[in-house]
């Protein structure tokens, strides 16, 4: 049984919705009634059926619409996709990884045929059937990274590893939570994380870098991150701040449930075999408050998390303006009863 891909938009009329099955599989990021940074990294292994972890690269009902939105972003701003000259080999690594994983997880939608370095890639949802020579960029319509990430949900950063550090030397970034590849390109791990509050003092980045530079082939890792977005907009980039920044002033007690979205990033980390680089897919999942609160446990827990969030984090995540309205709305769904431990709905 294949996925039924939704026709929907992430801009203008914002017709994005989650089906009931997709609400239940949403990767709710809070395992307890409070949130603080931690190095919450775990092995990226297959999870339960019906969760976003049932395949290591997840394809869902938003796939086609997300790829259309990505094409619109790239048409307006080609610098969302950049690859420094030494990163082409890593781009081929990524192409192989994403084709293999998508074909493995969704054989009804994707097929990869290999005959030596002669490869055929069939992507049925997007109507693509291309034959090319692996390693020969001239046989594809785009560079290998751009080609495959125009067909894969989520943003992708490819990090070069050298001098005991990681360098943001290539990426496809169109669904980001207010950061810019064009600004960060060529930066190292500490440089691109410089704006994050509190975590530096806790030594989190030193430990995280040590872990990431030791990620091994065949042993990917993952973590969840989160923020909130007003309207289901995938492209909340600094470049387009003038389009989405003002949305934050439009939240009212009447429209909270429809406008405010929890935005969760499933970040994974993979060693790339030929280039020895690391790829860092950042997969964005959106859920509007009206959808989220259909799970009473999530409603109670989110209320407590947002209410008690340290001020610095609320500011960094851009919640300041509408936090009181949101907390007030959520409080009506929190009867004070205990929540079960773990992420899932009851």
């Amino acid at each position, binding site marked *: 049984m294949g996925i039924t891909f939704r026709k929907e938009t992430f801009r203008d009329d914002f017709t994005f919705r989650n089906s009931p099955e997709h609400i239940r599989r949403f990767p709710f990021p809070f395992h307890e009634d409070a949130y603080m940074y931690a*190095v919450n*990294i*775990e*092995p990226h292994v297959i999870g339960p059926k019906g969760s976003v972890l049932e395949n290591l690269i997840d394809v869902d009902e938003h796939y086609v619409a997300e790829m259309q939105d990505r094409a619109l972003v790239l048409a307006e701003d080609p610098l969302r996709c950049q690859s420094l*000259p*030494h*990163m082409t*080999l890593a781009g081929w690594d990524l192409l192989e990884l994403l084709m293999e994983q998508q074909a493995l997880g969704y054989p009804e939608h994707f097929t990869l045929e290999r005959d030596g370095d002669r490869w055929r890639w069939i992507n049925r949802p997007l109507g693509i059937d291309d034959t090319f020579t692996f390693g020969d960029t001239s046989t594809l319509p785009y560079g290998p990274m751009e080609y495959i990430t125009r067909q894969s949900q989520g943003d992708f950063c490819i990090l*070069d*590893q*050298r*001098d005991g550090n990681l360098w943001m030397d290539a990426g496809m970034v169109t669904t980001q939570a207010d950061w810019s590849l064009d600004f960060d390109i060529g930066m190292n791990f500490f440089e691109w994380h410089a704006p994050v509050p509190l975590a530096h003092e806790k030594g989190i980045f030193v430990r995280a870098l*040590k*872990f990431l530079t*030791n990620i*091994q*082939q*065949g*042993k990917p*890792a993952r973590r969840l991150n989160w923020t909130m977005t007003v309207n289901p907009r995938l492209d909340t980039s600094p470049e387009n701040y003038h389009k989405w920044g003002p949305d934050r002033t439009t939240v009212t007690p009447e429209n909270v449930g429809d406008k405010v979205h929890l935005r969760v990033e499933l970040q994974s980390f993979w060693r790339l*075999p*030929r*280039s*020895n680089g690391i790829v860092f897919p950042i997969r964005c999942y959106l859920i509007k408050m009206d959808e989220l609160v259909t799970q009473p446990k999530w409603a109670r827990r989110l209320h407590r998390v947002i209410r008690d969030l340290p001020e610095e984090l609320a500011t960094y995540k851009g919640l300041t303006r509408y936090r009181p309205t949101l907390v007030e709305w959520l409080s009506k769904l929190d009867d004070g009863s205990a929540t079960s431990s773990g992420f899932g709905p009851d």
Partner: protein
Amino acid sequence: MSTGTTKLDVVVSDVVPVNELVTRFHFRRRDGELLPTFSGGAHVVVEMRDGDRTRLNPYSLMGSPLDTREYTISVRRDDVGRGGSLFMHRSVKAGLEMVISYPVNLFSLDLRAKKHLMLAGGIGITPFMAQTAQLAGEGGNFELHYTCRTASLGTYADLLRERYDRRIRLYHDDLDERIELDRLLSTQPLGTHLYVCGPAGMINWVRDRAASLGWPPEAVHFEHFAAPQPGLPFDVTLAVSGKTIRVGEQQSLLEAIEAAGVDPPYLCRGGVCGQCETNVISYDGKFIHNDHWLSEEDHRSGWKIMPCVSRFEGKSLVLER
């Protein structure tokens, strides 16, 4: 956070004597599938079951990364070492089933380089076998200078000359041929990266000269082949697991910890990657640090030890393991 590597079940598909000291071993997957792709400079850790003893030794992959039907390593026999190379030479025959780790690369090419200048000494040639194959496949610009004791001990020298012709320069100790290092290092085009693999003395010499001649440290890459050294037996208390163990003469501290059923993380087993870094709770005696991971300050402090290569002499040692 588990940081070990995945294991591969392999069978020895061929054993080929290369010269009087070096033998090459070929591995294929037991299930007939392709092995994982790797990058030039990567190593695998080979598990050797020798009676009731298990040795885990790292060896550079020397085949072409473009061919993953088999992995090949070359092992130099060390008659006074701890026995790993002797085990490989004497006991490993075609058809033997073995377990190796996934490839790990701690000696990676810098793909930004306009030119790759490689210096090899002796068995330090092995990672360059894979790196030159990788670069040649991509049309990369490299030059390899290879020092060996005699022509007959110049492992793969003929093969390299045949493949890459004048990009390979050979130096034979018995003919008193020496790399003109200063001239070589001072006449490279901008954007050249330097790679050196061989005996510690050679690596130190090259790094020193490169630094004196103004090479930026980011452009100088090296791989120490730091095998654990044998030494006097010593006793260690593992405070977390509540065990007291004895480290044998031919055993590394890491191997003794593993033999006691405690599994610290590891990758290189050669004092480079930092994975098995262990805190010292108390000690009365002196450390013999052989690693390239801890700072000199760490070595002096007595707070940390790298159990894969370092040892201890004295009355007591308590580790946080």
